[in-house]
């Protein structure tokens, strides 16, 4: 009689409750992307971040409530053909998509709509990079070769192996699975490599970009993070990939 209770209590202790947000203090942060053409650090306001990426189970619940985001109904302009194709059907996960796995094959538009349903938004790149720079003991572990190796090692994982479930070790902010589980959408994914220096451009391209500053990449030794920037800059908002999921953020 008591065994189920023990199991339930143990389960509630060991598995993180999904959909929780924790506060992060923010502040001045040396991003791989300079805030201006002189490599100014980013200023990050205090914000709240979802402790784990959104799971298949959570995204299924969202799709049931918002049928315009079912894979058989979504507008082609908002999600490509691969959208949620790992699910057994438009309203069932099936063996190819475990409830506690992070949802992937979601477009930026779908991720944004999901976050709005939680009264949240997608994190900015700076917020994401800042939260991901922490390990269990330090807010900024990026100078530690062990941190860099761990992140890089994950990138060498073949993309056709099944995704682990959420619930990795929490970092010092109480946030899990920032590195080592999935790629994640950020709000300003399409703005990371906007080069503002129109003066360098010729002919028809001369006036394509407006503005004084330019996106400058800093910390060239931080390959792991630069790979994220490169990947995010290469996708379009309707694209989905096997390993791209997301989590949401809120203003503090």
């Amino acid at each position, binding site marked *: 009689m008591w065994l189920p209770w023990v199991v339930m209590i143990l389960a509630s202790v060991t598995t993180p409750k999904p959909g929780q947000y924790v506060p992060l203090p923010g502040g001045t942060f040396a991003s791989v992307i300079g805030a*201006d053409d002189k490599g100014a650090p980013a200023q990050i306001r205090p914000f709240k971040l979802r402790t784990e990426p959104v799971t298949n189970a959570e995204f299924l619940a969202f799709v049931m409530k918002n049928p315009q985001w079912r894979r058989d109904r979504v*507008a082609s302009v908002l999600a490509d053909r691969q959208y949620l194709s790992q699910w057994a059907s438009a309203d069932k996960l099936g063996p190819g998509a475990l409830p506690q796995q992070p949802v992937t094959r979601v477009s930026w538009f779908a991720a944004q709509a999901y976050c709005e349903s939680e009264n949240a938004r997608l994190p900015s790149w700076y917020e994401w990079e800042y939260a991901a720079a922490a390990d269990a003991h330090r807010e900024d572990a990026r100078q530690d070769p062990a941190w860099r190796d761990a992140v890089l090692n994950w990138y060498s994982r073949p993309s056709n192996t099944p995704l682990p479930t959420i619930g990795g070790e929490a970092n010092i902010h109480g946030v899990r699975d920032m590195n080592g589980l999935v790629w994640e959408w950020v*709000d300003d*994914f*399409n703005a990371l490599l906007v*080069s503002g220096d129109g003066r360098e451009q010729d002919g028809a391209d001369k006036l394509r*970009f407006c*503005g004084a*500053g330019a996106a400058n990449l800093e910390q060239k030794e931080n390959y792991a993070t630069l790979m994220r920037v490169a990947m995010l800059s290469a996708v379009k908002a309707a694209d989905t990939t096997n390993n791209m999921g997301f989590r949401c953020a809120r203003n503090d």
Partner: protein
Amino acid sequence: MIKRLLFLLASLLLAAPVLADQKPLPGDSVYQLGIKLTDQDGHTWPLAERRGRVQLVTMFYSSCTMVCPMIIDTMKATRATLDDASKQKLDLLAVSFDPERDTVDALHAYMGKRKLDAPRWTLARAKPQDVRALSALLGLQYRQLPDGEFNHSSELILLDADGRILAKTTVIGKVDPAFAAKVKEALR
């Protein structure tokens, strides 16, 4: 009785364009994006309300002194290549990257300053996440700099009556003849 008949007639007239729009939106229409815009007169409406007319669309911000005035100039110049009948069939929409500073009042003032005629011209703002979504859909890039200015790509986008992207141009500062030809064709 007459009043009633008039009312009936009026509601039929009002209903007519709605009925014409009953056809479902194509999947590749930008009007699939469920965002709302607020124009220079403070009216808020769904983006999909632009459906039914050919649109020339761009994104800008009114305090920009570098390329943005030329974006608006290029919109004007492209429109000026059309005959009078076509001019009346084309709507021009510029949505701000900068909802913080581009308030309804600021947009209204910019309409006057640049002599943009309503209702053919519309300047609009949206909440920040909707600005990002629209830019992502149109393929425009922008980021805010620490000094409050924006880096952004500049592009004119031609939409058909159902909101499908027919053509784009990155030529700013002069009329792109190939793009202008597409505009003419869309209004035929």
